[in-house]
């Protein structure tokens, strides 16, 4: 934990913005620069920042789930997206698309690739945080000074 007032105040402002930005990256990825990988890195950085500012214990609490769980859910999303195609009678990982019209918002293109990308995001976040948290567990005080 860095005892820097500027850093802690800035973090408090930055973390929500970074998380929203990560989701933004994820959602726009299919047609504009972005995607699950970079979204995951941004979200992971947000939590690491938080861990630096408020301590690993607080960061764990904010995250609510264990990073390991994120890894599992992430992989399950990605494989699930692949299996959806199999259940639909197509080859594994073939993209499936649904066009949904939502009043007021307009047309929505929903693809199984989005689920896949969410899986990538979760795996990346999980990897970054699992590494940081387990280093802290091994050598207490490294992150949490």
């Amino acid at each position, binding site marked *: 934990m860095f005892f820097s007032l500027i850093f802690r105040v800035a973090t408090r402002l930055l973390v929500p913005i970074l998380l929203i930005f990560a989701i933004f990256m994820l959602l726009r990825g299919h047609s504009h620069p972005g995607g699950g990988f970079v979204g995951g890195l941004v979200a992971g950085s947000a939590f690491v920042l938080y861990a*630096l500012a408020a301590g690993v214990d607080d960061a764990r609490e904010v995250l609510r789930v264990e990073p390991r769980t994120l890894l599992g859910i*992430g992989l399950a999303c*990605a494989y699930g997206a*692949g299996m959806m195609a199999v259940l639909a009678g197509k080859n594994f990982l073939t993209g499936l698309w649904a066009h949904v019209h939502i009043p007021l918002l307009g047309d929505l293109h929903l693809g199984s690739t989005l689920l*896949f990308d969410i899986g990538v995001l979760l795996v990346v976040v*999980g990897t970054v945080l*699992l590494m940081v948290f387990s280093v802290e*567990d091994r050598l207490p005080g490294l992150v949490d000074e």
Partner: protein
Amino acid sequence: MLLAVLGVFVTAALAPLVVRALGRHSGWALGLVPLGIFAYLAAQTPEVAHGEPIREVHNWMPAYDLPLSFYLDGLSLLFALLVTGIGTLIVIYSSGYLAHNDELGRFYVQLLAFMGAMLGLVLADNAIVFFIFFELTSLTSYLLIGFYRKEESSRQAARKALIVTGGGGLAMLAGLLLLQQATGTFEFSKMLALSGQVQQHPLYTAIFVLVAAGAFTKSAQFPFHFWLPAAMAGPTPVSAYLHSATMVKAGVFVLARLHPVLSGTQVWTYTLVGVGGFTMVLTAWLALRYTDLKQILAYTTTMVLGLLTMLLGVGTGDAIKAMVTFTVVHALYKGGLFMMAGSIDHETGTRNVKELGGLRGAMPYTMAGGLLTALSMAGIPPLFGFIGKEVTYEAALHAGALSIPLLVAGVLANAALVGSGLVVGIKPFFGDMKGAFTREPHEAPVSMWLGPLVLGALGLAFGAMPWLIDHSLLNAAKVGILQRTLEPVHLALWHGFNPAFMASLVTFALGFALYATWTTVQDSAPMRGLGTVFGQGPGAVFERLLYGLARASEEITRLFQTGQFRWYLFAIFSSIFVLVGGAILTEATVRWPSTFGSAEYYEVGLAGLIVISALFAIRARERFQAILALSVGGYGVALLYLLFSAPDLAMTQFAIETLSLILLVIVLIHLPGLSGTEPLGRRIRDAIVSVGCGALVTLLMGMALAMPMDLRVSEYLAENSYTQAQGHNIVNVILVDFRGIDTMGEITVLVMAALGVYVLMRMPRTEPPAFQSSDGERPEPTVAERETV
């Protein structure tokens, strides 16, 4: 047949539920499944005995031309009946034996899975299917031997069995694949029709050696015999079932199955007769060295396996007849005797023959079963064992040039067998009560004396009335092995005063003498020597080798994995330099692009910034400076990506750079500062490698530019990314759709890496264990020992 095999596996999966519902009576319910299959198979006997094998084919993996095919002829029928019949009794027996064990459910899963595998093995027609079941029996027996997983000796025994039989299985696989090369088919039933051709094939010797290696390891032939007595560390029902009646016979079974295809050559005859005969005599005498009931029985099992192998090697009609007869004889008495040994252990707390005696009053049913089976093992008329021995001698007498050595070996081994049979069957029940028992001796529950009694009674019935099975089952099995019809099998108790009977008399005389002097013989100096050299010896050598292997790999690992990051970098980059550079020098022509496009001033500036930051990182006096300098370089590269219109790449690079900067700073604060300078020699070495790698990459870039650009892939992606994958961002479409499976692999690797870090960080720092020389094999802890744990 598929239904039968699958049924057993399904029962295995459901076993824990049954155990939860019925507890110690679950054996009776679970036993119904193998019993049903036994009845179904027995009903096929008339048809099969008429020489009409049944073949059953199911589609499995048509893409690999791999059908689930089964083949029921006399040979597989005989073995399948043994597997299910004895299996039924064992399943019933187990719930009595392990009634007070909380893990009975787990035990049944493993035991029934083994049974399914064994049934599949003997019924399989396709060699690959056969191999799968063959390995499954190794795996399940590994679990079963190591059932008392908290005991070091159990785990060691299980490992021994797995490595020996699993390794042999791999040789078997290679042999079967070569056999397919030679015959053009994986189906045993079709191979059998080609008998006589494989023997001429140039691959024959290789096939024979590999198949025999698989069979010898599985069937515990010398010098691999050591795993079987060690496997007695498992619970007694396991020893009774796997290590006497079924699994160990898988090796013999495969030799019998392939008999028409591989037999008849000199290498076949001499190898099988030599190895089998030696194993037979050696382990028959080793059995007399031990006092633990299970240990004695284990060595007599390898003796019989040697005998069966030897008879297959001889290969005459008489020998095959003796082989199928003895298979049944042995399965009946050995299954029963092991169960008896378990019951005695269960009810008295010991299995040491020297401590046992006088149980005839306390355990009458167990005694009846035990006595019948033991006398059959000793070959006393009118039990089936007597006939088994007679036909063996007959086969030896009719074996031409080999007959004298065979007869001598047979008499030597059988005399020892008579001795140990009497020791096992008579000592515990007669004489005086020794009184050293940890519990009041009492009769075992029905589930535990039923097995020995049924098997003993069958031994008596088949001995007195061999016509019950000789013309039907045994003859069909003989035809199945030879694949041609000779004179039908005919067995009789009384053959007249022929040479075989004389040999029997000699055997009895020697055997009774051995029994009478057993207490002296058992502990005599020659026997102790024999036990040390051939009993414990091979197992100890095996453990030494295993330990040596682990040590050697550790040394190699230590050599490469120094734990110093700079060494890893040096190794990686210098090998890139040597390998890639060497490849360019020898295999490619160096081309250089004739023109480069012009560069804008800001591009040049950026490139300069990257170079300067790299130089600054080298010269930095503090880690912090070096890291910052490297980051500047990294951000510069990200900007370059942006300039050359790769925004996705640039973004990812920015994010990675930021994250790693944060992480490095966290860690670096805690590291000691850089101190001193590297020796000049090492600096020069590092400079050569790094400058060389830089030059190499530059060269590669130039060569790539000099190649004509092939735009087909990019054009395809540009055209199809929206129409097929509904995305405008080609990079992302590639990642999540076109090459989605690559991404899948990458995130899986990422997960593995993260878990690796997680595990590493949680591991205590430990030293590798020193070699623990086990004091020979230790059989299953007796009931008394288990309870004190």
